[in-house]
């Protein structure tokens, strides 16, 4: 079954067509990378999927259900989580509190004016597990805004994970990271895959990361779908080499 399906999506900003008639299907459990030059429409695609704005035409299906008309928070409730190209966290709260908010929302507690003892313990355990998985346990009490850039990006991923999503959308998780941090994030994403059923869509500029992790790759260029295939197929694709890899090399 396809966890994510995008049908003929078009997005216009005034006269600019950021996405033109893009179709995409991601089956359960796959790690799909989306690549393309700057301004290709990758983030716009995430914005359509996550409900940041509505498409000008076309539809988005999540686990077979049409979610095009749903608000962002409703899509999260169905099991969609995303991170942003520019880190979005709660800077004046601790790392633990950042993740706890996500965990409480996932547990359905967001409007609760108080929690029982066992509920609270359950949430804390969930947060600790997530921080452990993300390798942030030692920094749980630090203010998120005071972390190094790389740790902030990991914290944002941890928040998304605490939502227990079926589909995780990562927008350039290694953006602005050094060599070692990039490796750590790559390892984290690999661990996530090993851990379970999670379907991941990853926008990424770092080709080593992409070829390391992706099951399949989708290439966008000027808002259009240029190619799709396994890493080997994409590496061998002439149109892609010309439009993207050629330029990057």
């Amino acid at each position, binding site marked *: 079954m396809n966890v994510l399906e995008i049908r003929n999506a078009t997005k216009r900003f005034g006269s600019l067509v950021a996405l033109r008639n893009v179709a995409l299907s991601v089956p359960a459990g796959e790690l799909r990378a989306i690549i393309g030059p700057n301004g290709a429409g990758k983030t716009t695609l995430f914005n359509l999927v996550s409900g940041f704005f509505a498409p000008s035409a076309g539809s988005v299906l999540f686990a077979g259900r049409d979610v095009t008309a749903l*608000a962002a928070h409703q899509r999260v409730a169905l099991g969609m989580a995303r991170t942003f190209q520019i880190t979005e966290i709660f800077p004046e*709260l601790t790392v633990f509190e950042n993740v706890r908010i996500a965990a409480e929302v996932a547990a359905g507690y967001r409007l609760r004016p108080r929690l029982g003892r066992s509920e609270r313990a359950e949430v804390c355990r969930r947060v600790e597990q997530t921080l452990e998985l993300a390798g942030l346990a030692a920094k749980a009490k630090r203010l998120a805004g005071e972390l190094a850039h790389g740790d902030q990006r990991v914290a*944002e991923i941890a928040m998304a994970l605490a939502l227990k999503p079926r589909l995780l959308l990562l927008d350039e998780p290694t953006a602005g990271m050094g060599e070692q941090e990039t490796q750590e994030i790559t390892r984290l994403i690999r661990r996530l895959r090993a851990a379970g059923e999670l379907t991941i869509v990853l926008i990424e500029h770092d080709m080593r990361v992409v070829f390391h992790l992706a099951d399949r790759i989708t290439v966008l260029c000027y808002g259009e779908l240029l190619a799709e295939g396994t890493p080997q197929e994409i590496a061998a694709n002439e149109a892609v080499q010309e439009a993207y890899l050629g330029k990057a090399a």
Partner: protein
Amino acid sequence: MNSRAGAARQAGTALLWAALLLAPYWLPWVGGYTALGARVLVLGLAAMSLNFLLGFTGVVSFGHAAYFGLGAYGAGLTLKLLAHSTPLALFFGTLAGGIAGALLGALIVHLRGVYFAMVTIAFGQVFYYIAFRWNSLTGGDDGLRGFARQPLHFAGYAIDILNNGHAFYYFVLVCFAVTVGVMALILRSPLGRTMLAIRENERRARFLGIPVERHIWVAFTLSCFFTSLAGALYAMVNNFADPMGLHWSLSGDLVIMAVMGGMRSFWGPLVGAAVFVVVQDFLSSITTNWMSFVGLLIVLVVLFFPRGLLGLAQRRGEA
């Protein structure tokens, strides 16, 4: 790392409660009087209620006087026309302002920043003019008179909060304690943390599955209920409700108290209210231009204590 700061904060809180509990006894020694203490409590409660929204949800309202005033008129009219009962007056006063806030909030939560603030001012002024014009009901410009808070009855005992200033002060203190207790509980709950999340980063909050508008509405409505309770108490301080209690300048005063005391700290607005009320009380007996001195004070506080009077103490405590 936080244990020492935590201990300092607990000591500070204990000291604060001690000062509030003993106020009727130490206030005269420093030239104050018990009614002044009650005024600080009531305006402090209003400023803390506003700050529930301003400091802890990140939403700026410049119209909270509307709910404060509705609480005051609601309580006054209840005592005057409906029932000679202090609890009922508090109840209906709080309900009047709270329900108005809930309805108005539903209309405006999709607005942001300065637009939200402007609409809150505008609605506040609507209530002001109604109170100002509707002479027969509200007493118009002269304010609402002809009512008085009533003695409390508990299981056969009567507590004369009307004539006994100390008793009235402790009555206000109990109402204050219960309300700020509820506020503190909410701020430490999942609901309260979604408010912090919205303050910190609305986009992140939304994409963590928080319906931001709905949560701002909840925070706004709660804040209006708390504020109108403060207003209802205010009507009882002087047995008087006046249209200035609805005027936007009071909304501004409440924001000033919160900012001056420290928006990010729970008790900051109470400290701000204390400074404001004391300075006003002291200066207005010397000069009619007291407001310009308050203005100067605000400038000094903002320059030297950018996080408010309590904000500084907290920074120090954390370091």
